[in-house]
């Protein structure tokens, strides 16, 4: 599992993480998604329904981040990681899947998140061709997953379930 997720989860970054939820699922604890509260709200306050246009613009904005952008010595994502995330997300867009919220993490990764129909998806772009997904599904706890997702098969499956309600 991604060390970055661990770091991020305890690091007070700008976005909350499903990783703690996943850990509870794996430990066999009962996950009550209805009572699950985010540790911190989205990096994009007020952006309730993201669009693909927003996601593209947000990715482009990441190019302007400077070292220390989060006041905690945060590292900006590299241009090649931004381009790689854009390519992967473009593929999801072409499949008519719902758009994500986009946020950087303090250690130079990019996080794409989706929520809907009781499903939460966090897709962490760590480096080109290296990503991790954390999926939490309140209806089907067995569908919870955290791990590598090289061709976004798990992500795509979860997003199709989210998108089916749109």
């Amino acid at each position, binding site marked *: 599992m991604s060390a970055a997720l661990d770091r991020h989860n305890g690091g007070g970054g700008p976005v909350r993480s499903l990783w703690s939820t996943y850990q509870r699922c794996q430990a066999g604890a009962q996950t009550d998604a209805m009572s699950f509260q985010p540790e911190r709200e989205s990096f994009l306050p007020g952006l309730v329904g993201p669009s693909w246009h927003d996601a593209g613009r947000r990715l482009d904005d990441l190019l302007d981040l400077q070292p220390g952008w989060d006041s905690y010595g945060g590292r900006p994502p590299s*241009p090649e990681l931004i381009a*790689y995330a*854009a*390519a992967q997300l473009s593929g999801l867009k072409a499949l008519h899947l719902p758009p994500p919220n986009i946020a950087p993490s303090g250690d130079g990764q990019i996080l794409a998140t989706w929520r809907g129909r009781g499903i939460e998806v966090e897709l962490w772009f760590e480096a080109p061709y290296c990503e991790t997904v954390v999926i939490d599904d309140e209806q089907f706890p067995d569908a919870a997953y955290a791990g590598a997702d090289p*061709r976004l098969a798990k992500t*795509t499956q979860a997003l199709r379930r989210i998108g089916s309600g749109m």
Partner: protein
Amino acid sequence: MTSSTPALPSFRKPPIFEVALGVQFKAPQLLAVHIGGFHRRIRDQYPKVVQVPPIPPSFEVFLPLPAPGGPAGSVGIAVRASEAFPRQWFISDDDEHLVQFQSDRLIVNWRKGEGDRPYPRYSEVRRRFTEAFEAFQDFMREDVRAAFDPNQCEATYLNRIPVADPAGWGRPGRWVRLWNDDAEEAEAVQFSVHRLLKASDGNPYARLIISAEGGMTTAGPAIMLNLQVRGRPLAASPAGVLDFLDCARETIVTRFAALATDEGNRVWEREA
């Protein structure tokens, strides 16, 4: 398209107009002063310099389902290139060969130009790429002190097929088997075909993109037939880059020969 490998198809007069071999890598922290450090290593062969806007980084990605609407990068999410470090063209005296260099790419081109310059064959383009690539690795090691970390490679063959008049560019089926709807004259034809290339484990690592389009060139009406292989080197090393390019060239040459019609074989003088 080349005759350097006996097992591959070869044409005496291929319609090749330009060939590019390139690698994209993790961008090191470069300053403008570094440009001279790299050029110094290849200046004897490429004395001319032109500065052009950088190409944004791009990646071939492979989702579990085919994504309609073309390659992943073409559906609207594109990020700009960093403008902090421009792209340099280092050009040979006769304008035939070109080395393109920016903070995250190295590309070597052969260009036919407007004359009747013969295609020097893949072996020569590869030799020039290897030379520039070795110079670049020296530059990274000695001047930049950064590791070379390739993340994409590409081989591109641009073919220009002259046609007698503009009506001819609506009939690419005369030259390539990708298009056979010549019963009614088309005003224009433009298409592309994408194929995944898979590694021995069955997972895709690259994409072959074949595109054709008619248009007016400085030499008159023509069909532009482009074959490109882009993807991730199977080994993130200099040897992995060269292996990728060799495999890409083989794929392109084999595919081009499979596409050529009898008329194409005759005009381009297929010899193997």
